[in-house]
């Protein structure tokens, strides 16, 4: 389009035509600044009065104020179809909201409340502002509008606008803004681009050092989908297991709130592993799991098949359960002071204590806000003492907590059990200012502690500030799992139904390696586990760390394979390099190897199993419900991620999930089926031209 080379093109960037700022905006900004300055000059005591909003000492500031006033142009452009969808979605969103018994996360403001009051001429009292904030995403805006369709649509738009509206003159609020914000550009700057793990962790951890702002959004490490591999060139696939489930809870919450989650938030392996599967249960602790393997046709691609590998961890009988030494490291920063964060933790803690016995001890250390030991190690049977100390915790103190994590580990160390579980459980909504600010140093610290036998799990709460990337990094380094707790039901799942997995590790450093037979399979692709890939040589190297499995954990991995001769994505080699497989193995699909260490041991054990043709199902309908369901979860995840590998209609995914529901005693799968419905409304197939 031009002969300019790149240099000249980029140089053109300095010739931007920048429209002059409107004088009104300028005045308003200067006034806002002056007001903020005046507020900042006020005494500490006044600051403390506002501290419950979370602006402790000027840190953890968040932006909401800027927001999206340009968007309301849609008022006049909304087509009838969209308006109709809006009519459906808004009540649906409200219904989902009210049925979760949650108050939505309280958004943090950037400026002190004093400023806000100064800024909002017609504004109601401060508390009302906050409340509006809190319910904004559930409730259509109150402005009257001419047509019902318009009112719903503008209502939804209004929730995007939030604070900015309060600051604008009334006239501006009602009139459509002259420009639509740069949505297209911004969309392309979504999470995948915006966040890179190496950067996001420092951003979160070094907030106070770098600048007065901390990134406000939830952070996700970006990753690429595993590519298709040619069996003749690369026959072996190796990865570490992952028992995390945080991604599914997060995705569910986003969808329930009416938002399509960013692609990097969708980790398919965590969605798969969220659900319990009825895999074969091992008989003894010596061989803590046995693999269940099945092969069935891919629902989204007629040419390929799926190899499903499932394992279920051994569940030791109750009497042989070892004691646990748990230290809770709880974030008490201002932002935790919300019913779905600290409130939820308090409410669900009692349930957890019921799962513990008198041999188990619980201690509580707080950081950020108020810091220190809130509860010295106490036997879990003293439930009232523990709950009382938890009740005394309040979010939003003034001093930044230091050494939180070291204190927690120190406590865990003092009461360390030689045979039981020693674990620090970090509960936070994203404030990782836990005493060690350098992220590398923090990971090293956790790694060292892990080697001394104290592991770390992370419980994430709330939304808006959640630093998923850091959460994952910490839990992986600490041999723990990261869970995202979005509501009471989820708390029950994590802290009651599956607490055994957290409390009792049955196998460590579990690695899976699959070798495919080039005579039978031409291509394969591992679905999910992108962040858990290992090198081939890591498999036999016991020094390489991998994921742990707790009692009763299930792990599911799916490969999409292209049978030899059915044509794949990659052209075959002209000269070939096929080695003839061992004669007796010529019809095997592949060979599965798993390595694990029994708790506390240094030498790994090996489990081997061939993937023989006798586990192949001709149609997906013949496959067990667990397999149908896993395939639907994978399809759902891929669709949400805009995966480049095959896509199904929402309806097809839904019917597959429905037929895979099985007994579903806890209703998790039924909930998933509903979630597909929500996603299909938020991103309909028709409008989704791919």
């Amino acid at each position, binding site marked *: *389009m031009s002969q300019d080379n*790149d240099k000249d093109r*980029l140089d053109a*960037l*300095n010739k931007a*035509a*920048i*429209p002059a*700022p409107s004088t009104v905006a300028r005045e308003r*900004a*200067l006034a*806002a*600044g002056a007001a*903020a*300055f*005046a507020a900042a000059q006020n005494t500490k005591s006044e600051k403390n009065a506002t501290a419950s909003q979370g602006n402790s000492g*000027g840190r953890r500031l968040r*932006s909401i*104020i800027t*927001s999206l*006033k340009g968007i309301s*142009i*849609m008022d006049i*452009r*909304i*087509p009838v179809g*969209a308006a109709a969808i809006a009519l459906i*979605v808004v009540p649906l969103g409200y219904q989902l909201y009210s049925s979760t018994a949650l108050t939505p996360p309280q958004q943090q403001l950037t*400026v002190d409340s004093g*400023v806000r009051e100064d800024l909002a001429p017609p504004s109601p009292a401060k508390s009302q502002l906050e409340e509006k904030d809190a319910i904004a995403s559930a409730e259509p805006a109150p402005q009257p509008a001419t047509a019902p369709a318009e009112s719903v649509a503008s209502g*939804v*738009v209004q929730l*995007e606008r939030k604070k900015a509206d309060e*600051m604008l003159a009334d006239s501006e609020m009602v009139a459509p803004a*002259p*420009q639509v*914000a*740069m*949505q*297209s*550009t*911004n*969309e392309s*700057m979504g*999470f995948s*681009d*915006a966040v*890179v793990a190496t*950067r996001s962790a420092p951003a979160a951890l070094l907030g106070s050092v*770098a*600048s*007065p*702002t901390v990134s406000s*959004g939830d952070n996700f490490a970006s990753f690429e989908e595993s590519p298709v591999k040619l069996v003749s060139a690369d026959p072996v696939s190796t990865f570490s297991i992952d028992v995390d489930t945080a991604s599914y809870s997060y995705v569910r919450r986003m969808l329930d709130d009416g*938002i399509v989650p*960013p692609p990097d938030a969708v980790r398919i392996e965590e969605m798969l592993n969220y659900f319990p599967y009825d895999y074969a249960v091992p008989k003894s602790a010596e061989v803590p799991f046995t693999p269940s393997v099945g092969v069935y046709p891919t629902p989204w691609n007629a040419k390929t098949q799926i190899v499903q590998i499932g394992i279920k961890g051994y569940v030791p009988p109750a009497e042989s359960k070892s004691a646990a030494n748990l230290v809770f490291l709880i974030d008490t920063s201002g932002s935790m002071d919300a019913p779905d964060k600290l409130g939820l933790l308090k409410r669900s803690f009692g349930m957890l204590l019921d799962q513990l016995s008198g041999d188990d001890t619980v201690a509580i250390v707080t950081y950020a806000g108020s810091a220190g030991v809130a509860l010295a190690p106490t036997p879990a049977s003293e439930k009232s003492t523990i709950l009382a100390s938890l009740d005394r915790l309040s979010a939003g103190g003034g001093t930044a907590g230091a050494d939180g994590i070291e204190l927690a580990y120190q406590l865990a160390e003092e009461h360390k059990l030689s045979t039981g579980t020693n674990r620090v459980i970090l509960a936070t909504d994203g404030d990782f200012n836990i005493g060690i600010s350098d992220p590398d140093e923090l990971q090293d610290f956790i790694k060292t502690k892990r080697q001394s036998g104290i592991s770390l799990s992370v419980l994430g709460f709330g939304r808006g500030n959640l630093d998923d990337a850091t959460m994952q990094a910490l839990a992986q380094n600490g041999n723990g799992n990261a869970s995202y707790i979005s509501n009471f039901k989820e708390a029950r799942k994590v802290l009651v139904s599956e607490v055994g997995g957290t409390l009792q590790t049955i196998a460590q450093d579990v690695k899976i390696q699959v070798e495919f037979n080039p005579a039978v399979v031409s291509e394969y692709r591992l679905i999910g586990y992108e962040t858990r890939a290992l090198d081939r040589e890591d498999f036999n190297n016991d020094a390489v760390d991998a994921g742990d499995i707790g009692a009763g954990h299930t792990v599911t991995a799916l490969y999409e394979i292209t049978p030899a001769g059915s044509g794949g994505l990659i052209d075959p080699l002209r000269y070939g390099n096929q080695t003839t497989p061992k004669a007796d193995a010529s019809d095997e699909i592949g060979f599965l190897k798993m390595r694990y260490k029994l708790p506390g041991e240094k030498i790994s054990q090996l489990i081997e199993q061939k993937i023989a043709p006798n586990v192949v199902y001709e149609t997906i309908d013949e496959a067990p419900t667990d397999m149908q369901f896993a395939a639907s979860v994978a399809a759902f995840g891929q669709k949400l991620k805009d995966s480049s590998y095959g896509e199904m209609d929402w309806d097809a995914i839904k019917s597959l999930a429905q037929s895979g529901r099985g007994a579903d005693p806890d209703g998790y799968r039924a909930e998933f089926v509903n979630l597909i419905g929500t996603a299909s*409304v*938020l*991103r309909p197939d028709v*409008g989704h031209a791919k």
Partner: protein
Amino acid sequence: MLMAWGTNLDEVGVTEPEASSSETPIDHLVRRAQGGDADAFGQILTRHYDLIYRTAYKWCGDQSDAEDVAQEVCAKLGSAIASYDGRAQFSSWLYRIVLNSVRDMQRARSRRNRHVDALAHVSPQQTAPDQEAFVTAGQLWDAVRGLPDNQRDAVLLVYAEELSHAAVAKILECREATVSWYVHEARKKLKGLL
């Protein structure tokens, strides 16, 4: 082509947008403001509003967004000014705040955008009206704004703000080589996009 721009990487020299010898030096104003002088703070804002707004505009490409960001930055400065410790140049420090605010806004936006898109099938491919006259320039801007944050920041600071790599490194709090690397990566990406 790579060599053509390679020569540019070594240029050094910090442009100080706020420098003006006839006015009170910025450091004095900052110190007075930190001491509680509201007039001095007001002067700082007046003097820097255009820089803040223009930077925000370049990063967002939308007037009302830029105005919002600028307002937020002003408000932030009210409390943040006390924490400016003079280690970095004031303008570098200010850039950092502006860039953080832009990023915050866009994060918040990108989460909610899809929500809005789901409701409205209007596909807003709009660039701001004022850019429509410069279609090709608009594409370049869009492409640059679509880069990953680090690369976008580096490219815009180097080319749109015409700062040296050394100055950009201070703002982005990384090493100079990293800035060059960001720019290099950005070029690789832009080749595909342009």
